[in-house]
């Protein structure tokens, strides 16, 4: 899928090769001025056609980034392109662990898998025809020191929608778009099912590990036993060897399998990104409805003023009733104020309408792209997984056949 992403050929990827080559531990002071250990990752940028026939590749441009900087970049993209399904980052903390995996963020295996995940993230952004053109993204890859300032300067943090807004929007929108409702349901369902799958998979990995490691016990016993046997001695010794090999092989197998678990996790986090887009749409829809409601109210007020009937309660109306009706001048000034308000309202509604329509079309385009990409990715993953299983079985057959030969020769 790496190859596919590069083949998709955004102008950015045509110019440069991006990779996250290494990880390193650093210590420094954090925001509350305490010593902490953290990991930094090396981003390498190479010009696309840097390797010529027989020539040495040009040295890459490099810079170091922390996980928190990736998070900042992603938040920026989320806010700036709310209609795009933003690729997810690898998990912040190790979840769905089975007993062998460490849940420690500084564990070398975890760091290595995170490195791969971060590279994946950068490549996915770089291969998106909209996101790859973003200036801040480009600076993230090229400007080590000045980037943080540049991001904060965009003022994106002001555009972050408050949680309260999103929730009330979800509860009060009157005409939700059916397609988005369906999409939200789909991604919720997917989220539940994939989480469950990952949990079960962790248990399966654990038990499989147990089965293989017991064979290590066999190896030990066979070796000891062979010492006291005459006829079966050699056979048992060799068999013990094979058992040890078999037991040791599980480490590599599960490491490779972890890669597929990571792909499933990416899938899981993507559902969060899809939900984000749906929520943003809900918010827009809600704002449109509020604007329309507001306009309708104003129109009604004007009508009352013109006809003199009071259908809508207003303080001005009440006071005029109590304290005497207003002069013609006062009435006319109020009328023109309301008419202006209505004009503004009409503009606001039109704006919101356009905004909404544009959002929907852009979002839907990205959703279609995402679905296509997801199907391709899953196809690749399932094929590779099946091939891995077959190769695992073949190795097993070799081990057992060799052991069988040892015993047959006795």
């Amino acid at each position, binding site marked *: 899928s790496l190859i596919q992403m590069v083949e998709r050929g955004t102008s950015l990827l045509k110019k440069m090769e991006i990779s996250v080559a290494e990880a390193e531990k650093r210590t420094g002071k954090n925001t509350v001025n305490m010593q902490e250990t953290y990991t930094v990752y090396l981003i390498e940028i190479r010009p696309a056609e840097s390797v010529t026939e027989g020539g040495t590749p040009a040295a890459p441009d490099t810079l170091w980034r922390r996980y928190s900087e990736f998070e900042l970049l992603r938040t920026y993209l989320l806010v700036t392109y709310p209609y795009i399904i933003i690729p997810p980052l690898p998990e912040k903390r190790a979840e769905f662990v089975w007993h062998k995996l460490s849940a420690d963020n500084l564990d070398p295996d975890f760091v290595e898998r995170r490195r791969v995940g971060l590279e994946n993230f950068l490549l996915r952004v770089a291969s998106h025809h909209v996101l790859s053109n973003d200036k801040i993204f480009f600076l993230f890859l090229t400007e080590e020191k000045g980037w943080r300032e540049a991001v904060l300067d965009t003022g994106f943090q002001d555009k972050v929608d408050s949680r309260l807004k999103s929730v009330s929007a979800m509860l009060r929108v009157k005409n939700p778009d059916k397609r988005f409702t369906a999409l939200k349901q*789909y991604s919720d*369902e*997917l989220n539940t*099912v*994939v989480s*469950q*799958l990952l949990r*079960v*998979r962790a*248990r*399966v990995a654990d*038990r*499989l590990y*147990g*089965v293989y490691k*017991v*064979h290590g*016990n*066999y190896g030990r*016993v*066979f070796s*000891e*036993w062979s010492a*006291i046997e005459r*006829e*079966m001695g050699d*056979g048992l010794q060799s*068999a013990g060897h094979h058992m040890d090999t078999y037991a040791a092989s599980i480490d590599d197998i599960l490491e490779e399998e972890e890669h597929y678990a990571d792909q499933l996790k990416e899938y899981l986090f993507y559902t969060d990104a899809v939900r984000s887009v749906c929520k943003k749409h809900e918010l827009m829809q809600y704002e449109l409805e509020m604007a329309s409601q507001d306009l309708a109210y104003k129109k009604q007020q004007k009508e009352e003023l013109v006809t003199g009937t009071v259908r809508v309660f207003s303080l001005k109306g009440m006071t005029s009733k109590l304290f005497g009706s207003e002069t013609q001048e006062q009435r006319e000034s109020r009328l023109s104020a309301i008419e202006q308000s209505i004009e503004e309202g009409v503009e606001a509604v039109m704006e919101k309408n356009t905004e909404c329509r544009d959002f929907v079309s852009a979002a839907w385009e990205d959703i279609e792209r995402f*679905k296509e990409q997801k*199907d391709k990715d*899953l*196809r690749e993953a*399932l*094929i590779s997984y*099946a*091939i891995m*299983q*077959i190769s695992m*079985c*073949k190795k*097993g*057959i070799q081990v*057992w*056949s060799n*052991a*069988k030969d040892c*015993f*047959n020769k*006795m």
Partner: protein
Amino acid sequence: GFYRQTLHTNKTSIKFLNKGKLLLPLDFYCETSLCFQALDNRNVMFVHLSAFYSYRSLPFCRFFLQIEEEEGGDSFDIHISVSDPEKVGDGMNAYMAYKVTTKTSVALFRQRDFSVKRRFSDFLGLHSKLASKYLHIGYIVPPAPEKSIVGMTKVKVGKEDQSSNEFVERRRSALERYLMRTVKHPILLKDPDVLQFLESSELPRAVNTQALSSAGILRMVNKAAEAVNKMTIKMNESDAWFEEKQQHFENLDAQLRKLHASVECLVCHRKELSVNTAQFAKSAAMLGNSEDHTALSRALSQLAEVEEKIDQLHQDQANADFYLFSELLGDYVRLISAVKGVFDQRMKTWQKWQDSQMLLQKKREAEAKLQFTNKPDKLQQTKDEIKELEGRVQQGERDFEQISKTIRKEVSRFEKDRVKDFKMSIVKYLESLVQTQQQLIKYWEAFLPEAKAIS
């Protein structure tokens, strides 16, 4: 049999003319079994040699070689199967009846193919009779399967569930193995109780089957071991062979127990793996249902089906682990207890002989004293007692000689069978593992096109 061959060993060559005894120099050392070829290359003969040497307590040493012809290796033609477990009766008086089918060409039997119905206590009864007849003269009588109150109660009470079916199957398999081991023993096969057990349609109900299980043997062994510990006179080093063999069996026992524990562990892990794989299959199926793209959805459902099949494979493999390997190890751990029992019987026999000798010695001393007194009646009585005791001592020596000879034969027969048994079972077990892997490959290869069809 009448052979004119030269036997080549690693020390010396021996010429012998016929089956029988032969005098050899003292430094002759012989392996317990050798295969050798006829001088004229006409036949290859498999001959079982028992070499044993006498005890220094006698005034002369004799070292003899007895050649026995093998019972033809695998032309031993008898096969027993235990099948069709059937519950008879109700409630706590119910029992399981098993069909015991014998197929044989051995002339001892009246028919070639016949079957009878037997219950568990019948098997225990057979074992108790054989044990009482043969254990004390040094024959390794295969132990009967264990009693199990818990397992049997569930069956009696009528619980038709997985665990009680497994229990019945486990017992059926154990009974079959028990009978096969018993009839493979050339002496036990000829025993009238064995013949009656296999042939007669009605068998008198075996009562008092208490001390007959291998737990019972173990108790017997422990009692003998206690007696041995109390012996103050040590047996001399000419029994080095026996000491070596006893140590060998101790070591073997330890190894087999360790292996047995590992296999039980493995069976457990595999069963858990199977359970979790089934859950994985269900989750994958749900994922397939959530996806709307038909090819992807179908591929995911296929994945779920593959995982279900794999779950079944894990279960089958766990059963294979169990029946092919774990039960075999358990059988041998119990068999070795029987072997140890036989060694201890030899100790007891020796002790009995020594006791008679001590008594004889005392009586002779008494006789000598009585020579100087005037008690002719007492003297005569003592002389009679001495005569009786001399007889007993001679018998004791014969018994000890006989049991030692029998044990040597038995041990080498046992070892040969053990190696064959293990080799066969381990090879079968490894084959089952290979087959499982091959089946897994088939499942995944069938799945690949479904995955490739997603577009």
